[in-house]
């Protein structure tokens, strides 16, 4: 049975709810608040290595880190932050290829999400990816990390340099508020372009459907590893892509210029799922083989739990000193 907190997260982090919010920054904040209320632990906590600064207490922060002396003097709650928590560069790589402009989840209401064409709004993989990226950016900026954004398809279409200033938040939102580019995915080229611009070590969060050749993706990830970067690969897929349950013969049109195909999906379902599964398996193994995190996300599911899972995973790694 769901607790109240779980119900809150389920309702407010669901794509259907997020799609109702027109502004991406609001979506990000809602995601973060949802995660915070769900875990009862602040996502901004650090490992306490060297004191850096105070920041105001926000609900969810670890009360053990409250600075009681400041409280005694000022009657205000402040949290002690440390150097190690704020020196992380986070680069969000968001796939904006044509294939990301696909979604079968239809919701009602107004938002920047695509019109579904049947009177509702279509929650696409790109909507899902930008919502996650914005939430991560929001979290990172509150943690005084520097955040950079790269929107890519057949190459990097938009690159926002890393910054940790509060004003940077608006630029991040602006960078993520675009639409898919209409180009094919070229993972290797995008990686090459990003890596040529970012020299020092950073945490790359790649949000993509990974609809590129598996070997190209593998080679790109190897480059990230070679440069000493850390990567979290969030493989975003629509539920229908993973299930392929269309009931009747149809004429399929590829979004990345693959042409048309008249088939009965029921007749090809098994073979299709096998091919897709094999590809995703290869991509996942490529990521894990170089020590990167790989997570597969369903655009029909809430963005909160997978995000919290990513953050928890991240914190655990930092705590163990694996990353830094």
């Amino acid at each position: 049975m769901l607790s109240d907190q779980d119900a809150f997260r389920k309702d407010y982090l669901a794509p259907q709810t997020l799609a109702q919010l027109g502004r991406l920054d609001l979506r990000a904040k809602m995601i973060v608040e949802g995660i915070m209320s769900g875990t009862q632990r602040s996502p901004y906590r650090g490992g306490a290595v060297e004191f850096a600064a105070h920041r105001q207490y926000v609900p969810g922060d670890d009360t053990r880190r409250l600075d009681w002396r400041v409280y005694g003097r000022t009657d205000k709650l402040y949290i002690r932050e440390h150097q190690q928590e704020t020196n992380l560069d986070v680069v969000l790589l968001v796939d904006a290829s044509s294939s990301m402009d696909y979604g079968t989840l239809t919701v009602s209401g107004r938002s920047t999400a695509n019109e579904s064409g049947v009177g509702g709004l279509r929650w696409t993989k790109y909507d899902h990816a930008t919502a996650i990226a914005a939430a991560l950016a929001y979290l990172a900026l509150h943690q005084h990390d520097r955040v950079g954004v790269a929107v890519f398809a057949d190459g990097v279409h938009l690159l926002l340099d890393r910054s940790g200033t509060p004003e940077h938040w608006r630029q991040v939102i602006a960078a993520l508020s675009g639409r898919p580019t209409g180009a094919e995915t070229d993972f290797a080229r995008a990686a090459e372009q990003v890596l040529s611009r970012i020299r020092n070590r950073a945490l790359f969060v790649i949000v993509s459907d990974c609809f590129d050749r598996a070997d190209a993706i593998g080679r790109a990830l190897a480059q990230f590893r070679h440069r000493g970067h850390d990567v979290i690969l969030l493989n975003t897929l629509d539920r229908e892509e993973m299930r392929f349950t269309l009931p009747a013969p149809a004429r399929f049109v590829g979004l990345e210029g693959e042409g048309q195909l008249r088939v009965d999906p029921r007749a090809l379902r098994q073979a299709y799922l096998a091919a897709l599964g094999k590809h995703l398996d290869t991509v996942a193994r490529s990521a894990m083989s170089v020590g990167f995190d790989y997570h597969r996300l369903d655009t029909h599911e809430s963005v909160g739990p997978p995000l919290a899972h990513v953050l928890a995973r991240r914190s655990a790694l930092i705590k163990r000193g694996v990353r830094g």
Partner: protein
Amino acid sequence: MTFVTASLAFAGAAAVAVPVFIHLLLRRRRAPVEWAAMRFLIEAYRRHRRRLRLEEWLLLLVRCLIPLLLGFALARPILEQAIAPTTERPRCVYFIVDDGLASGLRDAAHRSALARQLELAEMVVEHLNAADRVGVITAARPARMVRTPTGDHESIGELFESLRPRAGRTDLGGAFERLKHELSRREVGDENVVVYLLSEFRAGSVDPVDPLPVLPVPDAGGVAARFFASPPASGRVRNVQVVGIEPARNVLLVGAAEEAPRATVRLVRPGADAGSETTRVRLTGDQSPIDEEQIVQWEPGEIETQLGFAFDVGAPAERELVITAEIGEDPLVADNRYHLVLPVRKRIEVVLLDRREFGFEPTLDRLSAGQWIRRALAPDAGGPVTMRNVEPVSLTVGDVQGVDAVIVPRPDLLSDRGWAVLRRFVDRGGLLLITPPQDESVHGWVDHLQADLALPWTVAREVRDEAPGLPVSDDVPPSELLRQISGDLPELVQPVRVQRFLPVATAADRTLAVRTSLRLSDGSPLILTGSPGAAKTGEGRETPRSSLGLVILFTAAPELGWTNLPTKPLMVPLFQELLRQGLSLRRGGKPAEVGDAAIGGALAMHPAAAGLVSPDGATIDVQPGGRLARAVSQAGVHRVLGSTGREIGRLAVNVDPAGGDPTPQAAGAVKAWLDRSAPWAWLDESDPLGAGTASGDGSSLASLLLVFLLAVIVLETIMARLFSRASLRLGRADARGIRPSMDERSPLISSEGGS
């Protein structure tokens, strides 16, 4: 292979285009679906392209086979090797045509049911081979073989044109007997036999209770016999019938101070679901001023009614008067008219078998039974009843010639020859009234009632005395004999007492016509009526003989020593009614029905009849006993000719109303009835030749194709489900497809999605 109906085969072949067209149409009309993971779909398609195309073509092929097979099956294919023997072996086609009364039912276009059935027959004949022979049997009673099998098809067509609905009831049993006789004398291996039964099978034409004779089915030597019947009609038709005229008295007495004769006309209209309607009924007489008309207003659901007519007969010159009841025109004309021939009498001739008395008229207390009866029936010479005394001992046939009734107050005086004369008199329709002799104490004569008259009564020889006398029961049993005075009887019988009477035990056999008209208070019969039954022949064997007359037995002599009846008011009306109504109840003189071949009863009034002349002038010889040389086939008033060729009377012949019942019958019931005689199949009216001209191989091949078609349909269903994988219901794990993963160490791909 060829087809009986090639057009259907062509249609089936053309219909192959339908699934192809649907296939192409669906391909063009499929709305595009944008798909992001297209590369994987293409990859899957490339791997299974050959299999998918093969499945698609196979499915299309099977779907094309369905209309093709259906068309071929309906077209009744015939294999070449099956045609050869058919063409070599000629057919003998028998038509049993229902031309009975119900076949005269006309539709809105005034076309009879017979005409509609004959159109089918003509179509069949037109398409027969020259070597085929055709025979025709008509089923109206009496069923006839109107044309023995002949190769002259033109004459068959002319015969069909000449056939008209007849007045006789349909007798399919008789028609089958004719056919059975015809088939049984055929040589095996001669010709294929095809029988067509053409009827609308309305209630008037069928009798599901009466089993049909089993028809021989020659199947030896490669000879095939097939039986086809036209499907039963289903439409309801309104038909009102005049089913009878029942006069108050069956003998008209004219010239006397009689009240106006009365008659009841009975009408029926079969079918309980009939609505309200109006029928105009007219009653006419052939030589009298009778011309009465009444209107019947039928209520919904009312199926039977009767109308009372009182009419003036005037002074007819003939000894018979023909009364006709007629209604307006309706779909079946033949049963709209009913005739009745009423004997007309100016006087009733009665013979009194009593000892002749000489001298002065005795006083009342010494009057004999015969004298009391004479006073009751003919008090004076000017009355309608003429009585003639005959000595019982010397009774001869000549004494009762032309006499209506014989009254026997002294049966004890009759000789054996006299009893034989009386029996013959009764057999021919005479009325015999017997009373016990007043002076006898032991009545040996009663033995003759059983021995000569074969009456089912056991009359005691000894008189039973009941001083001071038993009253007559006022609980009068319903009796046709005393119907006219039944209202006054309870009052009239009250003062009557019976001191002496002969006890009678009646037979338990209810098939014998016996009726008690009056009883004493202890239940003993006072007046018995009956018709002579079986008489013992000289060899002691019983020989059934039909008797047309009536015997009335008084168990008490109408004499003051036995009863005070002669002095009571009941005496006169009682004997007057016994005489007049007794004459009416004789079995003779009733109308005959079309199809009757034995009309002895109807000709009872004319024992010397030698011939009948129908309304259209055809003559039918009458054999002794009233048997006709051929059955009556026409309704209407027939003239009865004597041995000299002179007209001696007239005979009314009416239709059997049951034969005109237009109620449609359920096809299943008719089929079950017919199938007891032979394996009948319904004739397809849209393709009457398909059944008759195709050989047996054609239908069996069509059946094979239909079975194959069913198998193909099942195969198509299975293939469609199998190829589309629609039959593979997705389980929970299957429906999930590839699972999203939050942990890189968890399985990335579900078992179903794994390669």
